[in-house]
């Protein structure tokens, strides 16, 4: 069994972890920390990722992408309100956001794939082996499109994503393993861009999620944003400068706001200082923790509603919760801790590093999948109700939110009109009554044999797998035949697009040595096949028939190897072919020389190479 790593693909930072015997560990590069900033920058030397890319945030803001996770599985309309805060240019193609970096545009999964590749390389360098399989975490409240986008990112990065698991439940695995936690726990996970609350029951190695809720657009980024707003306004008032239109200045302010916020988790007061552009002096102000709290209060309050809903769905009250676990860097804020403590009426835990615990849990899940850990099992739920649009634009729920996954529902479809050959099905996710208020996941057309109205009976199975991703199958109940369904995602990449992005990533990834070797070998093999075939066509009369059939056999062997995954096999068959065609090549060379010499003076042949 090859090794499976666990990856926390975060809004702000990403980490990769592995299981060292029975202890999960975060992998850090030499002289480096475990966290890789989720930042990708386009420089004159190509695309760079992580800490070096972070330096470009202020240097070339319009070519440096951060917080890409906010755009995963989203359309441009979904994120319209935050666009002014992002210095890079966003467009949309086929319902998927594209981020412009120089001449090219990239989808969020492609940008995420670059971060994943960095983590993959890190793991490969550390473990000294090739890594091709991973468990990747997502916010529990991610919908189907966002999960699918994450899976796509993994594929583009050359990783087989064996499982998508929820961040708070991953954290619970790490706690369960390392702290032997038991009972009913609430995991409060406030990260850089997303918020999740999960309520779990931990009993005899089973981690049963009772309910989950959250907000995929609420996190540390938002705290930074309100503080940035405040600073921008003050600079405008005091210095008459509007820095909101200057991307590099915006980034500088945002980063200072983030640093000040972090400082105020320890200190009660701090000084915010910013050098104004073009030597126009310096902005400086004192900021107290109370002032920051006041700015962030409404945002922190927004996390409490989902907590109450999750409790209600689990059929519990705060007193039923034995332990509260804090996950995500933003839970370092004292205000967050206070509010959580007040809601659950107990001191929250943060025994494990809130930045690392999700990656550690992902490594535990990876170990479960590879058969290493057998006593632990995670039973997670789907965060949102899944349904279809019915007459009158109403959503009919098929799988309710907080249903344990895998979960399936069957629905029978028939026709209303004689001879009708198709039924359009629109799949939705969300809690609202009207279809239009919910998230459109996909549409597909069910093929129906032309029969009198009401006669066809097509059973459609909607299955949410252990990744929380929907699969759809259809079966004609009259004939018993299964029908393959091509589901067109509303806000996602089609399979073909993902395929193409995988190819692109191979083309551009100078680091992916083995993939590059394969592609190069295939290209070279293709060229050799073409030239050899041309030689055969032109010069097979110059050699014995046995030579020709030898060449044809070697050609066939190479063509077969070219389709395979092994570059060395391809190179081997190429050598065989060159060997087999040697006589032909020499004969043709002689022949062309002979032809060329005819009617030429000796000096033309032996003269300079001009």
């Amino acid at each position, binding site marked *: 069994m090859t090794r499976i790593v666990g990856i926390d693909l975060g809004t702000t930072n990403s980490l990769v972890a592995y299981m060292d015997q029975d202890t999960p560990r975060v992998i850090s590069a030499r002289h480096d920390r475990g966290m890789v900033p989720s930042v990708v920058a386009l420089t004159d030397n190509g695309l760079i990722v992580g800490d070096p890319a972070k330096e470009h945030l202020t240097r070339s803001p319009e070519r440096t992408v951060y917080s890409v996770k906010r755009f995963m599985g989203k359309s441009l309309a979904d994120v319209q309100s935050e666009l002014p805060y992002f210095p890079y240019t966003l467009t949309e193609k086929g319902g998927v956001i594209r981020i412009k970096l120089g001449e090219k545009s990239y989808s969020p999964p492609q940008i995420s794939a670059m971060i994943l590749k960095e983590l993959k390389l890190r793991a490969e360098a550390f473990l000294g082996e090739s890594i091709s399989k991973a468990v990747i975490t997502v916010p529990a409240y991610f919908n189907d499109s966002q999960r699918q986008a994450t899976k796509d990112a993994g594929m583009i990065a050359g990783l087989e994503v064996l499982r998508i698991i929820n961040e708070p439940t991953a954290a619970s695995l790490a706690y369960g393993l390392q702290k032997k936690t038991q009972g009913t726990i609430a995991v409060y996970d406030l990260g850089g861009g997303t918020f999740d609350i999960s309520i779990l029951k931990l009993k005899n190695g089973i981690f049963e999620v009772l309910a989950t809720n959250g907000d995929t657009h609420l996190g540390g980024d938002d705290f930074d944003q309100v503080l940035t707003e405040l600073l921008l306004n003050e600079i405008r008032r005091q210095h008459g400068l509007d820095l909101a239109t200057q991307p590099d200045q915006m980034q500088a302010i945002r980063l200072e706001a983030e640093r000040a916020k972090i400082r105020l988790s320890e200190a009660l007061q701090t000084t915010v200082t910013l050098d104004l552009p073009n030597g126009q002096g310096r902005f400086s102000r004192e900021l107290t923790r109370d002032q920051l709290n006041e700015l962030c209060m409404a945002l922190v309050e927004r996390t409490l509603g989902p907590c109450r809903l999750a409790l209600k769905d689990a059929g519990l009250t705060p007193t039923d919760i034995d332990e509260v676990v804090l996950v995500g860097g933003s839970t370092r804020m004292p205000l967050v801790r206070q509010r959580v403590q007040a809601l659950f009426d107990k001191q929250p835990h943060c025994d494990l590093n809130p930045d690392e615990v999700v990656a550690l849990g992902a490594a535990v899940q990876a170990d479960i*999948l590879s058969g290493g850990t057998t006593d632990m099992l995670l039973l997670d739920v789907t965060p949102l109700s899944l349904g279809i649009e019915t007459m009158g634009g109403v959503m009919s729920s098929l799988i309710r939110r907080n249903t344990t996954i895998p*979960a399936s529902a069957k*629905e029978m*479809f028939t026709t209303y009109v004689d001879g009708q050959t198709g039924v359009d099905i629109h799949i939705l996710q969300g809690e609202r009554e009207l279809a239009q208020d919910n998230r459109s996941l996909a549409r597909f057309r069910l093929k129906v044999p032309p029969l009198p109205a009401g006669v066809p009976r097509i059973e459609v199975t909607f299955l949410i797998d252990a990744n929380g991703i929907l699969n759809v199958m259809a079966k004609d109940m009259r004939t018993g035949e299964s029908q393959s369904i091509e589901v067109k995602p509303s806000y996602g990449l089609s399979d073909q697009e993902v395929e193409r992005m995988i190819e692109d990533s191979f083309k551009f990834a100078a680091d992916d040595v083995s993939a590059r070797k394969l592609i190069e070998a295939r290209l070279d093999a293709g060229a050799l096949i073409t030239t050899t075939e041309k030689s055969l066509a032109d010069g097979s009369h110059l050699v014995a028939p046995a030579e020709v059939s030898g060449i044809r056999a070697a050609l066939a062997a190479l063509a077969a190897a070219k389709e395979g995954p092994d570059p060395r096999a391809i190179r081997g068959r190429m050598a065989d072919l060159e060997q087999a065609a040697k006589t032909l090549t020499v004969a043709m060379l002689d022949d062309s020389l002979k032809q060329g010499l005819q009617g030429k003076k000796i000096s033309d042949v032996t003269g300079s190479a001009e």
Partner: protein
Amino acid sequence: MDEHTHNTGDRRELRMARSMCWHCQSEMAGEYFCDRCVKVQPVSKDLDYFSCFGLPRRLGIDTNVLEAKFYELSRAFHPDFYQNKSDAEQTISLGNSAMLNTAYRTLRDPIQRAEYLLDLEAGAVKDIRTTPPADLFEEILELQDTLNEFRASDRTSDDASALRSKLHVDRTALEQRQREMETQLLQLFGRWDALQDRGEATDQSRAERNRLLKDMRSILSNRTYVKNIVNDLVETIA
């Protein structure tokens, strides 16, 4: 236009279809795993949820036993443990897990459990009531009027606050009513289980069986009706 109806399926068949192992074709004797090749077997579509957990078909069940059995079967079927197995086994694991989760969700809740049992025993889809139960008719019509009035009112006005307090009173009354129905149901559940335990095949016991089924069904649908009204009410005055 499409039309969809809930598939009730043919769950009435009790026994698990004893057939051959999909993998080694030997006669299946084990419950979910082939005795010979140890491969996981797809849970038969004909297996009812009670049998799935090895429980008798009763309305009173020990939820601790149910949970323990659910955890045990989850460990047997969950896709996490089939990652290194063949595609066929992975598909079976996925299907079995999904079925198991549905079965657990259904049996865990006493009301859903009863509705499911009614479905097994009497074979019909649950009644969906569109008009108020007779004994609540007047009350509910009046409540609907008050609700409509409240919806149309200016929420800050005195009228609205008077309506709101009236609705609060109605809500308490209906919730009380719902609890009464649940108590009644529990009694019926007990009588049903006792009848099953006796296992008589007399005309009298058959008659009681049918009467119990009819009563349970009627109270279940009334309860669902009241519950929906309460939910609506709570949402409106929230």
